[in-house]
């Protein structure tokens, strides 16, 4: 009897083990999150400590500069991976667990999603009129939905044409001002031989495609009528899709990922003569390929109708106060300093070349003064950006699940590049792959397939 008794108790103990282990783990987690929650509250007397997550280069320098000049607010910064590399996943998981940072960096396309999920807090009442006045209306328009503002724009990036001045001169090319001229130039570039092409159609380029369609007058998402109207193959989009499809079919552009080593080689070896990207890319290019110094210049993006110039943006970030922030006012003060104070921009630029076009236009002289023009042969690129920024079409809205929509689109772009499907069918696939998602989220939706 005693033997059996002990055996039974041992068994009971063994079966109980995983359970207690699991319980232990749970309580451990709880106390950990409680601790991290309280740490943001505490600090030295009278000092509010807020947390800040960003993947943007130079954020540490900005935070250091802020902490040095501010006593009542101290910022605890964490560099996180860029959005698609897991940064957004980290943010939404943290928000789900109730410990998102006070301030998070969110790019324009992802903002509606984070606003809908309640991660980005409605900051309409805490954002000062003074700050509003400093920001370009087109940028604030991108962060305001149903008259409620969810984040503060840092930069607004008009899409521009980066081109190889040296090769243009060598072959006697003029800078194209319309898309027709651009297509014609594409043929001439191809004829020069040596594997040269005018551009690469980025198979991972949802944001580029969006910028082109935005410029042409497309409205993939529309919320003006109280529902999410999805129309990713509207007439302007079809025009853009057909345009690029023709360039691809005629073999006038490369068609591959713009984050691949293949693309790096295409740019590095001078096989691709133009890059269509945001203003920020000028600085990125300087950092990535210092050996091409002096070879590039920047021009306005070609237009569809020369008399009525329009433009879309490519890139750009915003700062949101999250729902978990215990100090929204302090968070807002930090954000305001970050986007509108000259020292913040100077600190950001100290980490390396940057050509971001600040949404707070008062900072443009600071950016211009700090920018080393020698890479672009002395060209005053900021003046160009300034002219271009005003052409940005108002009223563009990103979707509620833009990352996912973009993935479906890009997968289909890649297949189109491999000869299966077209750019237009990719747009339709993106819409078809987005609708079920929006419906399952309980959003009111309508859609147009033409």
């Amino acid at each position, binding site marked *: 009897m005693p033997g059996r008794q002990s055996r*039974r108790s041992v*068994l*009971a103990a*063994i*079966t109980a083990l*995983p*359970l207690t282990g*699991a319980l232990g783990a749970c309580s451990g987690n709880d106390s950990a999150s409680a601790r991290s929650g309280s740490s943001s509250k505490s600090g030295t007397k009278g000092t509010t400590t807020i947390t800040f997550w960003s993947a943007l280069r130079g954020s540490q320098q900005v935070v250091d500069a802020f902490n040095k000049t501010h006593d009542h607010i101290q910022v605890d910064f964490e560099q996180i991976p860029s959005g698609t590399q897991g940064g957004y*996943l980290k943010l*939404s*998981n943290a928000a789900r667990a109730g410990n998102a940072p006070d301030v998070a960096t969110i790019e324009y396309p992802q903002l509606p*999603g984070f*606003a*809908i*999920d*309640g991660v980005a807090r*409605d900051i309409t009442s805490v954002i000062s009129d003074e700050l509003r006045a400093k920001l370009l209306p087109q940028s604030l328009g991108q962060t305001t*939905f*149903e008259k*409620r503002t*969810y984040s503060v724009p840092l930069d607004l990036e008009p899409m521009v044409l980066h081109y190889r001045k040296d090769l243009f001169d060598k072959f006697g090319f003029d800078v194209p001002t319309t898309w027709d001229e651009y297509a014609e130039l594409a043929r001439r570039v191809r004829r020069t031989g040596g594997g040269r092409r005018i551009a690469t159609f980025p*198979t*991972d380029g949802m944001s580029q495609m969006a910028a082109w369609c935005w410029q042409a007058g497309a409205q993939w998402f529309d*919320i003006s009528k*109280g*529902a*999410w109207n999805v129309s990713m193959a509207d007439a302007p989009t079809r025009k853009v899709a057909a345009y690029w499809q023709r360039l691809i079919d005629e073999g006038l552009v490369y068609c591959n*990922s713009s984050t691949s*080593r293949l693309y790096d080689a295409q740019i590095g070896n001078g096989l691709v003569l133009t890059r269509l990207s945001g203003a920020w890319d000028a600085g990125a290019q300087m950092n990535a390929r210092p050996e091409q110094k002096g070879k590039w210049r920047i021009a306005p993006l070609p237009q569809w109708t020369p008399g009525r110039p329009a433009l879309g943006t490519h890139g750009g970030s915003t700062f949101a106060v999250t729902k978990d922030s215990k100090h929204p006012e302090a968070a807002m003060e930090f954000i305001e300093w970050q986007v509108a104070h000259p020292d913040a921009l100077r600190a950001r630029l100290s980490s390396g070349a940057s050509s971001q076009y600040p949404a707070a236009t008062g900072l443009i002289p600071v950016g211009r003064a700090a920018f080393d023009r020698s890479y672009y042969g002395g060209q005053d690129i900021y003046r160009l950006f300034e002219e271009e920024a005003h052409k940005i079409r108002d009223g563009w809205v990103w979707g*509620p*699940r833009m*990352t*996912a929509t973009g*993935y*479906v689109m*890009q*997968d289909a*772009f*890649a*297949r189109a590049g*491999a*000869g*299966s499907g077209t750019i237009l069918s990719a747009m339709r*696939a993106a819409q*078809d*792959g987005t*609708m*079920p*998602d929006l*419906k*399952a*989220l*309980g*959003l*009111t939706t309508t859609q147009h397939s033409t």
Partner: protein
Amino acid sequence: MTATAHVRTAQAAPPQAADVSRRKAQRSAQRRRNGAAGVLMAPFFLLLLLVFLIPVGTAVWLSFFSDDQPGLGFGPERTVFVGLRSYAAVVTDPTFLSGLGTVGLYCVIYIPLMVIGSLALALLLDSGVVRLRSWAQLGLFLPHAVPGIIAALIWLYLYTPGISPVIEALGKADITVDFLGLHTTLPSIVNIALWSNLGYNMVVFYAALQAVPREVLEASVVDGAGPVRTALQVKAPLVRSSIVMVAMFTLIWALQLFTEPMLLHQSSQMINTRFSPSMYIYDAAFSRNNYSLAAAASVILLIITIAISYGVTRWTNRVEKAEEHAR
């Protein structure tokens, strides 16, 4: 054992009390047996509850609810019962359906290759044609000991242009291959899965073949069957239950295809984030933050898996019965 000992001592007792005490002893023995069975089976049921029933129940529950906001969705959230809305969304999602199609094609290619390949290897080993039998077994089995994620990493290295020695070597011989191209991704994934699991299933078949009575084989030899005929017409039918089991397990694993495409996805745009139903579920939950949709897709995948497993079992049972009748 203890129970019979008790019964014996009870029999030795005086006859009048014997009946009562015997019954008592029987009852207590019964109770003890039940108790022992309960204790021994408790871990199983506990784990079943913890790692299967509770998660499935949670998924089913999640799939019927959603954190909704009216209109454009910018208002405050509230959890509401949404009925089959998420299920409707999943079954009308072309990306989910194409994932199902992909896995269907994968099963059609992979399962026959796996079953035939591992059976053929087991028959070869069993026939004694192969020298160094234990070494061959070890070599074939070893890949199974490599965790799936590591295996996928190894193959990712071998498949990625620019770093792969295989592609480089083939390139030197003027052969260009893109293992991660439009039409080659699925074969590439099948290749990884075969490499990982062939040896394991071969061991299962080999063990089953060991149980085939030697006299049956001797009889077949006496009847004049050569080694090939013996293998195909005597041995293979005798391990049919193992074949069904291997096919079933392979099918269930194949329907949950996840690790390999998830990792290869980093290197090829041809493998998208919703490549298989499992990847769709992962993407819905963690990239689209749509837990209700993910839960509905999980339940659908579970139902499909159960339905197919049940169908296969029923079918093989019927075939077996029909054959018995024929005999």
